[in-house]
């Protein structure tokens, strides 16, 4: 009976162990799989023509002839959109129209001055042109159909006047006629509403299709291209087609999202059919293609991480990790050797050990501030350098951060080297230092490598310590240790806190995080393989 109970408990315990392992793996999979999958979509995705244009402009990559042909096709399709917008904008925008009228009037005045004519006639014409201008401006600004018609009629009366023929004033009549024709379909009272709605419509179109060819090329690279990815394009298209509003249906209830077609805003105008046009000709405008953008891993990023890849970030992360390991490795081993070999368990050692343990629990932002105050503002100027954050200071800060981990792991490793090795070496007449370097250290190397693995994982992923000591969100590839650098961790932080940036470039955010995870994974695997090799060699297989 007791044997059976023991057997059952044994089985249950085994099952619990297996279960906990499975749960752990499942949790890890649940967390990592979506991140890695979405991060993967930064490399493999459906790219639009805008993406190919961007690649050609910024990285000089792609087939120019084919792109030109595609571009012609898509521009042909887009032309209608831009034209309609331009025309509609012209007529509802009273301010622009007023400015234009005033400008023409001034030019006309100058023309008159140059002409040889009697003073009275000059004065007459001048005041007449001003009257026309004023009347037009009243008509542009008014929302009363009657006033508009009246004023326009007054103005157009002078159209036949021979004195205005072949002068710049003739343009005024053309504008008036255009305006008269266009406002027939527009409810004048809603002109301001149209203007606001059109502004938003235009903004979304710029994000979707790229900037309007009739306007100058935007200064910022991120404004020069429309949606580069099909998923972003679809997102923007939805934004274009549907107007989202949050409304409170009844007091005390949470707000509800209500979507209405944006086309309703432009009911009856020439903009209205544009919505269907864009939706129906979506593929023709974007010419989407499956894209394998492996250069994501080597490309520079544009400001704001809008386009491009994570090349400098990967390099920066690797550099930072490497440089900090250069500090951590010797200092960690020497400290561990002192703690394990040279010291007896006295008061000072207890204090040191306590300090190391406390250090391991200090929040990383505190290390960041310490790094700023000590390395950047004090130590670098002390040696005559320019006091600015750089790779060196960031690596030193990271080294300080991870030293406790390294020291503890190394101390354990050194302590676990069999006493008999030391006895054998000392028995052959070797000194303490010689024994440590030639016998103890090689035997402790696998354990020390474990410390290195832990340190690398910590260092590569830390953000807070390098915040003030050497990381930048965007910049050139560092040339030496006294340059600041981009890193994957800091850049993804930058996207996350950037103004709505994370919503605009989610693929890049995921891409960075996935790259960071993969990078740390690869570094760890490399270190683990190295450790296994050394262990095998030590064991003699």
């Amino acid at each position, binding site marked *: 009976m007791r044997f059976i109970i023991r057997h059952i408990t044994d089985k249950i315990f085994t099952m619990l162990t297996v279960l906990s392992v499975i749960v752990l793996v499942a949790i890890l999979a649940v967390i990592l799989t979506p991140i890695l999958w979405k991060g993967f979509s930064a490399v493999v995705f459906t790219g639009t023509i805008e993406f190919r244009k961007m690649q050609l402009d910024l990285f000089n990559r792609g087939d120019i002839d084919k792109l030109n042909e595609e571009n012609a096709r898509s521009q042909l399709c887009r032309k209608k959109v831009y034209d309609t917008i331009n025309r509609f904008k012209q007529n509802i925008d009273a301010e622009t129209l007023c400015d234009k009228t005033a400008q023409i009037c001034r030019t006309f005045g100058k023309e008159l001055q140059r002409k040889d004519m009697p003073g009275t006639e000059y004065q007459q014409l001048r005041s007449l042109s001003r009257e026309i201008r004023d009347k037009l401006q009243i008509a542009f600004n008014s929302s009363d159909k009657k006033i508009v018609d009246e004023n326009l009629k007054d103005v157009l009366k002078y159209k036949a006047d021979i004195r205005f023929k072949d002068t710049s004033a003739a343009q005024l009549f053309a504008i008036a006629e255009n305006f008269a024709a266009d406002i027939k379909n527009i409810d004048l009272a809603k002109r301001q509403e149209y203007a606001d709605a059109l502004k938003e419509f235009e903004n979304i179109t710029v994000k979707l299709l790229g900037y309007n060819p009739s306007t100058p090329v935007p200064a910022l690279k991120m404004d020069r291209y429309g949606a580069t990815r099909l998923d972003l394009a679809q997102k923007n298209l939805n934004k274009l087609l549907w107007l989202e509003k949050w409304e409170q249906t009844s007091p005390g209830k949470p707000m509800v999202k209500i979507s209405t077609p944006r086309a309703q805003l432009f009911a009856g105008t020439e903009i209205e059919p544009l919505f269907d046009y864009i939706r129906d000709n979506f593929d023709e405008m974007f010419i989407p293609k499956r894209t394998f953008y492996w250069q994501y891993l080597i490309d520079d990023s544009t400001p704001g991480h809008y386009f491009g890849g994570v090349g400098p970030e990967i390099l920066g992360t690797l550099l930072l990790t490497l440089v900090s390991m250069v500090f951590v490795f010797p200092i960690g081993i020497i400290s561990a050797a002192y703690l394990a070999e040279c010291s007896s368990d006295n008061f000072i050692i207890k204090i040191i050990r306590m300090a190391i343990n406390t250090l391991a629990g200090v929040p990383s932002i505190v290390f960041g501030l310490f790094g700023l105050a000590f390395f950047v503002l004090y130590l670098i100027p002390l040696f005559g350098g320019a006091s600015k954050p750089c790779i060196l200071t960031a690596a030193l800060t990271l080294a300080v951060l991870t030293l406790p981990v390294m020291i503890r792991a190394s101390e354990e490793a050194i302590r676990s080297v069999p006493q008999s090795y030391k006895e054998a070496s000392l028995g*052959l*007449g070797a*000194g303490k230092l010689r024994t440590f370097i030639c016998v103890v250290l*090689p035997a402790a190397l696998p354990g020390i490598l474990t410390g290195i693995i832990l340190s690398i994982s910590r260092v590569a992923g830390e953000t807070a310590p390098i915040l003030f000591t050497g990381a930048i969100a965007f910049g050139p590839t560092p040339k030496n240790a006294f340059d600041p650098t981009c890193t994957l961790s800091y850049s993804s932080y930058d996207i996350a806190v950037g103004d709505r940036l994370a919503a605009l470039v989610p693929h890049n955010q995921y891409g960075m995080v996935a790259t960071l995870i993969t990078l740390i994974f690869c570094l760890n695997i490399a270190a683990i393989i190295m450790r296994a090799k050394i262990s095998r*060699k030590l064991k*003699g297989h």
Partner: protein
Amino acid sequence: MTDKKPIIKADNFCFYYGTKIGVENISMEIYPKSVTAIIGPSGCGKSTFLRSINRINDLIGNTTNKGALLVKSHNVYDKNTNLANLRQQVGMVFQKANPFPKSIFDNVAYGPRLQGIKKRSDLQRIVEEKLKAAALWNEVKDDLTKSALALSGGQQQRLCIARALATNPDILLMDEPCSALDPIATGKIEDLIDKLQTDYTIVIVTHNMQQAARVSKRAAFFCLGNLIEYDTTSTIFSNPSKKQTEDYITGRFG
């Protein structure tokens, strides 16, 4: 035998671990080019005495000693003793085979390298010579680069002997060298000891009475930190003068 000058001489030598007695008032002379066995029950101070001879006991902190322990007429506990020199003259083989986790070649070459021999051909000559002396050459000559830990227990112990011989010591201390080995490996080591005594002074600590009888010329019986009896092996085993010795040897003790 007794007409030779002793190579190791203890004169009222005492050794304490803190307040605990290791050995007390040991006076004995060990003669060159012979095998001297030290026998006695566990904790009697045999190993302490052995480990005092090359001062490997220094590894343990908080020890004190009294009296004199002379190796080649120099007191090893003298303040200006050169430890490296002493330990190269007095080689040691431990209870458990402890080759370094390095190749066989590097293990044997460790001592010569410490002495500053760097030339590959010299090292190769020494390694071959010492491995032959330790009767291991024929078994490992083809894979000197193999890790020492891949060898069997008996081979490892012979490798340790070769390693100890490589510094050209006069004295070889053996602290129960066969206690972890099977009878065949033990037999090989004993043959080796027999062969080595023509060139080296060997002091061996053993729990195995038959082994002591087989290999040693002289034997010392320790008990509770004291030297009870020290004579030729045949006398100790056939006609001991002390009751304690007889009890121990005949198995009535411990």
